[in-house]
């Protein structure tokens, strides 16, 4: 079979509908909602927060603590059992690493900068949506940043490179690779890269190009959301 038409009719380099909103959790220092297709992530930053146990503290800069969590009813099949899993712990870690390169946490010495990410509804691309929401929440919290981070999942299905895979594509059984990429346009650096599946080197190059293209589109939506909140009209 040749994958020449996407299941949902999108073009190969077309994102699903993207939407972002700043300031959705009044209690938090900063917060944001990020939606891509049917995947919805909400992120809230609480900072500065006391950091224990004490040996984790750093007297030169704050410590970024991200937590990725799928709410129990957000899975596409059975209920997700509440509580940390190996998957959610790994994703929390890679999200931290994806955000760190643009953050300057000098002002938060000895404290934690807590980033809590909840997935309310999922249709693939959840870590990337989480990163986009977290990046906006950090900006909303007024934390020094050299850029926003945007992220998107790119897929290889048969011989096609497709932007922003949904669940139906992720579950494609014959010849699928799924690559999550986070990117800062200003630094021109990739800050998250995870691939599941077989790729040629040539395909990887095309994947990165496609991811950068998608991230830059997402970045426009992120910037618009920030302007909607902060720019004087």
């Amino acid at each position, binding site marked *: 079979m040749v994958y020449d038409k996407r299941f949902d009719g999108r073009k190969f380099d077309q994102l699903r509908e993207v939407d972002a909103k700043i300031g959705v*959790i009044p209690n938090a220092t900063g917060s944001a909602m990020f939606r891509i297709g049917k995947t919805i992530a909400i992120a809230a930053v609480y900072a500065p927060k006391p950091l224990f146990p004490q040996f984790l503290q750093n007297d030169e800069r704050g410590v970024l603590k991200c937590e990725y969590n799928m709410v129990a009813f*957000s899975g*596409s099949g059975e*209920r997700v059992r509440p509580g940390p899993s190996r998957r959610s712990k790994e994703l929390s870690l890679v999200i931290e690493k994806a955000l760190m390169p643009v953050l300057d946490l000098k002002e938060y010495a000895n404290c934690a900068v807590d980033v809590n990410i909840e997935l309310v*509804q999922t249709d693939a691309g959840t870590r990337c949506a989480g990163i986009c929401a977290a990046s906006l929440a950090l900006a909303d919290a007024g934390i020094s940043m050299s850029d926003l981070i945007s992220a998107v999942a790119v897929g290889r299905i048969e011989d096609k490179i497709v932007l922003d895979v949904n669940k139906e594509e992720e579950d494609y059984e014959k010849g699928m690779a799924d690559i999550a990429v986070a990117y800062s346009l200003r630094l021109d650096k990739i800050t998250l890269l995870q691939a599941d599946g077989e790729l040629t080197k040539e395909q990887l190059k095309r994947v990165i190009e496609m991811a950068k293209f998608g991230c830059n589109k997402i970045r426009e939506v992120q910037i618009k959301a920030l302007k909607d909140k902060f720019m004087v009209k």
Partner: protein
Amino acid sequence: MKNSIKEHLFNLYGKGMHIDGRRLDEYREISIEYGISAKSAEGSARVKIGKTEVIVGIKLDLGEPFPDRPNEGSIIVNTELRPICSWKYESGPPGTDSIELSRVVDRAIREAHYLDFKKLCITPGEKIWMVFIDIYPLNDDGNLFDASALAALAALMDTKMPALIDGVIDYKQKTDKGLPLKKDIPVSCTIVYCDGYMIIDPTTEEEQFIDARLTIGFLDNGNICALQKGGDVGLSEEELMKIVELAERKTIELRKYLK
């Protein structure tokens, strides 16, 4: 600091006012949104009461009945007080606060037989529907009890059963059949007692100084279906009956928000 806030609050209560200018028996603005996780959950809803926001989702699964109730399905209510909703919470296993909240929401629904448990039985003694009600406060600005109870009811009403094919659930296929719900909705209202004043819908700031708390579930006909007292101070019979009367009046109001 804490004492001066307390003094200020009690002064306001004397004038019949909440800290935000409402009357003591007045709710903040309430809104309900249905289907907020329609792709993933079988039913879902968001309730906002002022700045307090709670989302609830319903998932269905198959299970075995309890040996003492072989022909009844079951409900499982769970609350996670995630650190996203307040400075107060850390991640970790559910603490006593979240367990009490779950059990209070559970009690009103269960004891009113709002779900027809018998109709949730597929094969007596073997296979039943289990209805998971998962509560997630997103922003805690007080009165999580009423917001969670209302959101749980709304999410149950929003639920569509998934298809059952050869004894296995196909989550991708939703039927147009809802849960077996009764017409009589068990609506809960929480009244708090503070320095001798009866108060509705406290904010987090006000919740610090609560003496007693009473959550009461009412049926349409004015009968009580569940009660839970919280707080460190006792109540006299006279106080209790006054609270019951006020709570009933407020549940009539709350009922109007549910579709």
